């Protein structure tokens, strides 16, 4: 901790330092605090932009979202006013809309598969990229490319493009796509005939048929894992090798514990990403409601959805945190 006067307020600092010596009366306000506290209060100046944003934009927006979901918006010349509608929008989402609950279930399943597959993929790829192989720079540049390009509108337009050609291709030459379908199907049968559990089969099949999506969705996770791997000191591995540990052993006993905090970070990131990305059924439905101008229903649904995500994260984080190894603990 720093324990010397600040330059910024020399007069105040000098007075504060002088007053106990002079036996003067006790000062109140900022000057009555000790130096460390006053230094720490400077921190508010740094976080001020965020606090302003939170206070004037974000928190009102969230409060407004909750209010929208409980009312009917009536547009008028100088603005809009809200008429109370109770919980009807929430009830509609659950009782009237046939797709909402199913959409959430589907999002959950996709999310679960995504988390497992993306974490595995990015961990394996990070381990490979961390090796000293020729053309390392080139591979890294290409593998991080999806973080930059496969986002937002590009991902959406890519889907559109695939759909448009997909329909055309089906019309023209069904053979090729039927072949693709067949190979997926036979893999599933093969795995099931080997008495492998259905969950595992579905994970493997969805991993293979969605390989492109997985590769493009796991850029950030890959970067985070790679950064983590690079921050592990090589001397730990060296001493393990001297003690006779094989590569496999040091992977499980050094690498995994050392990057376990990042497994937590990546899990949370993947959950959030999977819930908000394009192609997510619930998100698309909410977005469609917004573009139709049905803000009340959209808000109600987003809040329910947010609550689901929140509960899920509140369950998952402590669960994983239990297994995380913290060096400084």
């Amino acid at each position, binding site marked *: 901790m720093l324990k010397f006067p600040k330059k910024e307020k020399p007069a105040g600092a000098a007075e504060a330092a002088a007053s106990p010596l002079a036996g003067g009366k006790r000062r109140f306000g900022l000057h009555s605090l000790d130096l460390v506290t006053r230094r720490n209060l400077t921190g508010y100046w740094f976080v001020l932009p965020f606090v302003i944003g*939170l206070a004037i*934009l974000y928190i009102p927006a969230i409060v407004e979202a909750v209010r929208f979901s409980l009312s009917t918006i009536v547009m008028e010349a100088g603005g809009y006013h809200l008429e109370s509608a109770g919980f009807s929008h929430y009830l509609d989402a659950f009782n009237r809309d046939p797709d909402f609950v199913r959409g959430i279930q589907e999002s959950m399943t996709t999310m679960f598969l995504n988390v497992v597959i993306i974490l595995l993929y990015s961990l394996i790829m990070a381990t490979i990229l961390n090796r000293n192989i020729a053309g390392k720079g080139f591979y890294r540049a290409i593998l991080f490319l999806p973080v930059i*390009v496969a986002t937002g509108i590009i991902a959406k337009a890519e889907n559109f493009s695939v759909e448009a050609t997909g329909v055309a291709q089906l019309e023209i030459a069904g053979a090729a796509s039927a072949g693709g379908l067949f190979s997926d199907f036979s893999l599933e049968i093969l795995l099931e005939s080997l008495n492998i559990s259905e969950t595992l089969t579905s994970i493997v099949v969805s991993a293979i048929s969605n390989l492109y999506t997985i590769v493009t969705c796991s850029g950030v996770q890959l970067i985070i894992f790679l950064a983590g791997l690079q921050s592990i000191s090589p001397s730990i591995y060296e001493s393990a090798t001297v003690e006779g540990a094989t590569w496999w052993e040091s992977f499980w006993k050094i690498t995994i514990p050392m990057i376990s905090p990042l497994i937590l970070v990546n899990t949370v990131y993947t959950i959030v990403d999977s819930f908000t990305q394009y192609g997510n059924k619930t998100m698309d439905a909410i977005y469609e409601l917004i573009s139709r101008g049905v803000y009340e229903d959209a808000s109600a649904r987003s809040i329910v959805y947010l609550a689901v995500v929140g509960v899920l994260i509140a369950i998952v984080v402590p669960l994983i945190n239990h297994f995380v190894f913290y060096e400084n603990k």
Partner: protein
Amino acid sequence: MEAVEKMPAPKQRRSFKRKAGRVFNKSRMGQLLSNGLCHIILIGIVFLILFPFIEKICTMLLSYEDLADTTVKYVAKTFSLETLVTTLGIMDYWKSLGSTVILCLICSFLQIFSCTLVAYGFARYKFPLRGLLFACVIVVLLIPPQVVMTPLYMQFTFFDPLGLFSLFGLGSIDITDGVWPFVLLSATGIAFKNSLYIYMMRQFFRGLPTAIEEAGMIDGSGHFGVFFRLMLPNAVPMMVTIGLFSFSWQWTDNYYSAIFLQRSSFQPLSLQLNALQTYNQNDPYFTGNFRSALVGTGILLVVAPLAIVYLFGQKFFVQGISQSGIVG
């Protein structure tokens, strides 16, 4: 055991020698094999990532007749730039490119600045309520942008921060028609994924030694002097990294642009690409294949400038990430 004991000494030595040699070779072979395996996997994934682009470039070069011809795939019978020219025209490319560059530069610079500042505050000062505020940063990251999108739009349409404008008799003003919503969100660090940048930057600053700060203080710098003269120069790779993130995510952003710029004459590329998908929907000239080729070319045109920026920023990017010490 007996057999070993009975073996003549020289032979045993030779076999031992041979065995050692084999072990050496085996480990080298293993090294080569596993490296080869890594190369195969990596090349496969590189191909997977690059293939859509190669495919789109090939499709872009096909003529209108080739697109309708089922016997043509990837390699054109007659090369033509018709698709490219049509796409450039529909997207109003050069004007939109200009708008996008301006918008992205404004946003990414503001975001770099605000996120670095906020992150430094969180990393280095233990002010009261710090935990609560940082929890807010994380919560903002978790809330899908769609939840707050509508209320934010309403707020910007009737912009009146904390009722201050009404207080001075100005009434609310509509600022949705332009870059102001983006400026406000970026400057206050609550724009798209800004919490992630704040988190990354905070981890980076936590890893820097406090000695730098103390030295600066002794030499007579204030808190902001230390931040601008000592901390920022150290954080350049990290700032380039988050700058690259914010630049490219703003570049491809569809949600915020679609909502805040829908009525504006200021049309970024992402919106033009969106419009391309429904342009002249009932015109029989725009067949499924042709439209798909147009959208593919549109994607290429949107990505190309970004890819160039990435090539220059890439070195910093990897360096910045590995310096970040996200492990904390």
